[in-house]
C-alpha cells in the first residue's frame, strides 16, 4: 500500500464528492453529511456514471445517471440492483486526506 496526499478535507463538499486522477483510474472521494470520507472507483457498476457527482447520504452514494445506490463501505449496489465498485482506503492526518493505492509492479 502506498499513500498519496489528495488535499484538504474542506475541499470535498459535505454530502457530495470530488474526483482524483490516479494510475488506477478515476477515483471518487466522497463525504457524507457527518464528514465521513469514502473512496471508490469513479464508475457506477451500472453504466459507468461518475459517482463523484452523486448525492452522498449516510453510507450511500446515489449515482447521478440512473440513481443506483451504492453502499460505500462494501462497494455493493443496494437491492434490487446488483453490482459492485472497488473501494479504496483513506486516512486523514490533520486536515490532509491521504489515499491508499496498492503498490504497482513496475
Amino acid at each position, binding site marked *: 500500500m502506498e499513500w*498519496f496526499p489528495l488535499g484538504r478535507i474542506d475541499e470535498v463538499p459535505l454530502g457530495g464528492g470530488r474526483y482524483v486522477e490516479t494510475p488506477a483510474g478515476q477515483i471518487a472521494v466522497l463525504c457524507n453529511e457527518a464528514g465521513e470520507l469514502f473512496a471508490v472507483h469513479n464508475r457506477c457498476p451500472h453504466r459507468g456514471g461518475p459517482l463523484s457527482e452523486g448525492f452522498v447520504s449516510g453510507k450511500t452514494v446515489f449515482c447521478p445517471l440512473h440513481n443506483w445506490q451504492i453502499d460505500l463501505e462494501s462497494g455493493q449496489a443496494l437491492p434490487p440492483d446488483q453490482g459492485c465498485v472497488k473501494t479504496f482506503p483513506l486516512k486523514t492526518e490533520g486536515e490532509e486526506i491521504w489515499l491508499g493505492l496498492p503498490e504497482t509492479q513496475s
Partner: protein
Amino acid sequence: MGNKARKARLVVIGNGMAGIRTVEELLKMAPDLYEITVFGDEPHPNYNRILLTPVLAGEMRLEETILNDHDWYQEHGITLRTGCPVTQIDRVRRQVITAQGEKVPYDRVLIATGAAAALAPIPGNDLPGVYSYRDMRDVEALTQVSADGGEAVIIGAGLLGLEVAHGLNARGMQVTVVHRRAWPLDKQLDARGGALLQQAMEARGIRFLMERESAAVLGTDRVEGLQFQDGSHIPARIVVMTVGIRPRIDLAQAAGLACEQGILVSDTLQTYDPRIYAVGECVQHRGMTYGLVAPLFEQAKVAANHLAEYGRMRYQGSVTSTKLKVTGIELFSAGDFLGGEGTEELTLLDAHQGIYKKVVLQDDTIKGILLYGDTSIGPWLFEHLRDKNNVASLRDHLLFGETHLGDAGHAGVNQAARLADSAEICGCNGVSKGQIVRAIRDGLFTLEEVRKCTKASASCGSCTGLVEQLLVSTLGGVYDSSARKKALCGCTDYSHQEVRDAIRKEKLLSVRDVFRFLDWRHPGGCATCRPAVNYYVRTAWPAEGKDDPSARFINERAHANIQKDGTYSVIPRIYGGVTTPAELKRIAEVAERHAVPMVKFTGGQRLDLLGVPKEKLPLIWAELDMPSGHAYGKALRTVKSCVGKEFCRFGVQDSTQLAIDLEKNLERMWAPHKVKLAASGCPRNCAESTIKDVGVIGVDSGWEIYVGGNGGMKVRAADLLAKVKTEAEVIQISKAFLQMYREDAQYLERTAPWVERVGLEQIKSRVIDDLAQRVELAERLDFAIAQEKDPWAEAVSGRLDIHAAPLRRVSA
C-alpha cells in the same frame, strides 16, 4: 443501578398483519429500543390474510402467503410465541398472563387482536358443518370438507361471502348464497351493479337466494339444511356464515380499557392506558372501525412512531375504497355512491359487456364512485374524491379516465389487469407485469415498495398508473392508492405541502434546517428530498434562503447537462432563437478549437455543444462569452419562436420580438420542473405554442395565451388562459401564471399535470380576474429572479466553483 439500562420490554398481542407491520415500522426507526415478545393464537408466523381466497380457490399455497417467516423473528431478536393466547393484562403489575399461566412483564403493550367472524344468532349455529371464514384455520377446514363436494350454503353476500362462494365453487361444491337484502354487496353496489354481479356469478354456477332471512340451521348431529323465516328450507352439507366481523376486545375490556365497538384509541393509537397501544381491526378511532389493510398500515406507522419515542405523528382516520377479490370480476367502489338530494349522477351502462360505471357528484366534486367490469380508472377517480378536487372541467371524460396522463408510452392499454404476464409495464427499467405481480404477492403493499423492489415506475414515472392498477388488481381492496397521504420520500412522513408550510411558517432557511426541524429519518436525505427541499426553501425565501449546492443535481451544480459518458453539453442562451453571424462564428470557433465532438440544434431552436469534459467547461464558457441557456435545469429553458410578421407573409404579430422579451424577463427563473415557452406570430402556430408550458399565438387583435401544454412524455394540448391586446399584458400574465406554478406545484410536477390538478378556473381567478393578485405574483417572480446571477459568468469570474478540475492528479 448499573450503567447499562435494561432494554424496555414491548409485548405484542396478536401476530397478524397490523401487529407485525407496527413492529417492522418500529424496527426501522428504533431497532434497539425494545426487547420484543409477540404472542399469536394461530400456529403460523405472520401471513398475508388478503390471500385467503386465492388459497381457498386453490390458486395459491399457504406457504406463499407467509410475510415474515420464523427466521425473520430470529434475525430481529423477537421472541415469537405461536399458539399461545394471552388471557389477561394485569395493568397494576404490568404483566400479561397467558393461557398456560405464564406471566410476562412489560413496559409497553401493543394490542393487535384483530377481529373475529360474527355468527348469525340462529338455532343450530353451533352444529358441526357450520363454518366461518376468517383465518387460515377456516381455509384449511373448508379445503378439507370441500373435497367431498355437496351443497354449500353461504349466509351473507358481502365481500367475504362472495369470495368464499367463489373459492368453494372452484373446489367443485354446489354453492348457494343467501342474503337478506335484494342484491349482493349492498354496501358496495347499487341495485344495477348488484344485478350485473349476480348475473356474472350465476354464469359460473353459483346460485343466489335474495331477500331471505335465515331462521335456523337444520340437522341433529351435523348440518343438513337451512330453514328460512318463511318456512321454506334448502339442503346443505355445510353452512358458511359471513355476516360480519366483530373486533376482538374481550382482553382489553377485561383489563378495564375503554371500549365501544372496538378498543377506543386516540390519534396516537393509545388506549385509555397510555402504556397500552392498539392497532388494526380491533380498534375504534374517532367512531370508525376498519377492516381493510391500508388503514391498518397507516395506524401501524403512527403507533410505531410513538413507540419509538419520536412522538411526531397523528393518525387522523382513513378514507377507504373496496375491491372484490374474485378472479375475473372487477369491482371498485368508494364514498357515497348511492347519491341523494343535491347530487348528480354520471352513469355508463354496457350490459352486454358487463360494464357499469357511476360517479356521484355534488357541487362539482366527486362524492361516490362505483365501477363494475372495468375498474381501471378507480384509483384516478378516488384521488379526486379524496382530495375533493373540482372536476367540472373533467366532466366530459370522467367516466373514461385520464386519457393523456398515465397511459402514454403504452398507447391504448390502460387495463393492466388484462395484459399478459410478459407485457412490459416499465419501459425505462424493463419490468414485466409478471415480475411486478409476483413481487406484490411476495408481500408488497405500496407503490413505494414496488418501486424499491422491482424498479418499476422508479425512473420517468409514466407507468405509475399501470403499477397502481396492478397493486389494485393483485391486492384487492387492501390497496388504497391515495387514502394514504403521500410522503415526500422515504426519509420523512411529511407531504410536500406540509414541508412547504413548515418552511414558510418556521422560516427555515436551509435544507439542513428543514431536515433537522422536521426530524428527517436520514440526516443526509436522499436524491429525492434534497433537491425538492432546496427548491422549496429558495421559493419561500428567495433572498435569505440558502441555495445548497450539495442539494442540487449534478446538472444544476455543474451548470451543464451530464451525458451518458460523463461528459457535458453546453447550450448558450440565444434569446428567442435569434442570433447574428458574429455570434455564430464565435460559437463555431470555440467548437473547432476544443474539438467538440458534436454540434447540434436542440428541439428548442438552440445550439448544443455535446461531449465537453467537465474540466473544460469554464474555459468554453469564457470563450463563448454568452449567458447560460439553463438547458440543464429545472428552470426556464427557451422561448421558441416563429419568424413573425417582420418577414413572414402570414404573420400578424411580432413573435420573435415577443419571444426575446419573454426570455429576457424570465431567464434565470428556477421552477418545480423545466419550463418551455413559445411565441407564434399567427394561428398557423409554427412555434407549436399549444404544447408548451406557456405558449402565445398572435391573432389580428392581439395575443392568445395558452398554458399547461406538453409535447414530451405525456402529450397534452394547452388550455386557453386569456386573450389580451398588448405584449406587456402577455409578459405580466405569463409571470403571474409561472409564479403561481412555482409557489403551488410540487417539485418535479410539470405545468400540464399541475393545471389538471388545480383546475383552470382557480388559475384564472388569481391570474386573470384579480388584477391586484396578478401584479403581486409577477412582482414576487421579478424579485426572485433578481436574486439570481448568470452562473457561467460567476464561474468564469471565479466567484462560483463548479469543481471542474480533479481534486488531485496522483502519479505513481
